[in-house]
């Protein structure tokens, strides 16, 4: 298992999990979000290739109502 931080929460994920795998795990539609890994934006075409490592900090954001 790899300990990571997802949207500020400490969680554990299985080894060699990709960003795509993470989104599937949380039932998140990749078309409706943007992702930052350790402060850097990950483009959608990299979701499959990018493997999550120990201590990674991931932010998954979407659009909500706002002024």
């Amino acid at each position, binding site marked *: 298992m790899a300990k990571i931080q997802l*949207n500020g929460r400490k969680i554990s994920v299985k080894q060699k999990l990709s960003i795509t795998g993470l989104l599937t795990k949380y039932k998140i539609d990749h078309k409706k979000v943007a992702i930052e890994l350790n402060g850097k934006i990950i483009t959608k075409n990299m979701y499959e290739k990018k493997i999550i490592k120990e201590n990674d900090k991931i932010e998954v*954001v*979407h*659009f*909500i109502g706002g002024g």
Partner: protein
Amino acid sequence: MVKKDLLKIGNKILRSRLIVGTGKYKNFAETASAVKASGADMVTVAVRRVNILDKKKPLLMDYLNPKKIIYLPNTAGCFTSNDALRTLRLAREMGGWKMVKLEVLGDKKTLFPNMVETLKSTKVLVKEGFQVLVYCSDDPLLAKKLEDLGASAIMPLASPIGSGLGIQNKVNLSIIIKQSKVPVIVDAGIGTASDAAIAMELGCDGVLINTAIAKAKKPILMATSFKNAVIAGRQSYLAGRMQKNYFGAASSPKKGLI
């Protein structure tokens, strides 16, 4: 009738001069109904963390289709240039939108913009190819500076965000409107439909409304009211108002008086 009077901001053409925010509504269904009633072509949206624990939470995109209505990502809640830039880069990645609203706040109580950070962010965003609509103070010199830096629209406040105090400085707003070559959208502080009509009569190109609609007793009816007020104000501006006189001037001719 007035011929097609469209609002061009950057590369976008809007039929409606009313832009509405999507915050503070009871739920997304009410948001969607109010947006529809307002007739707006563009809505502001915020960027926030996905709630990873609640997988069934409804999404804004399921209620307001970004293919049918223009999403204008906003940096509301950002207090530094870096936070604002981070938010807008994520927004661009999310949907490929280049048009964004920059809002860098300087004070938690008044929510007045931090213009130093705003100017700094505008410069970076324009360089990165964004089309930036910039929330700003009603200082004509700073508004000009934003235009010179390449802002696609200037968005001066009427009064503090969410205050409903209406237009507090008509003179400054008028100066900004007269000097700007890019659209001027009055943002923040509009409290009711007549405030929006006044803003439009001053000659601004559009208004952005959120709280005044969302926090009305009947938000959907208020959205319709704002739609009409913006149209009325714009038409009044285009028609050109009569001159003010300090004395009465009878409307009926004196000739033939019995």
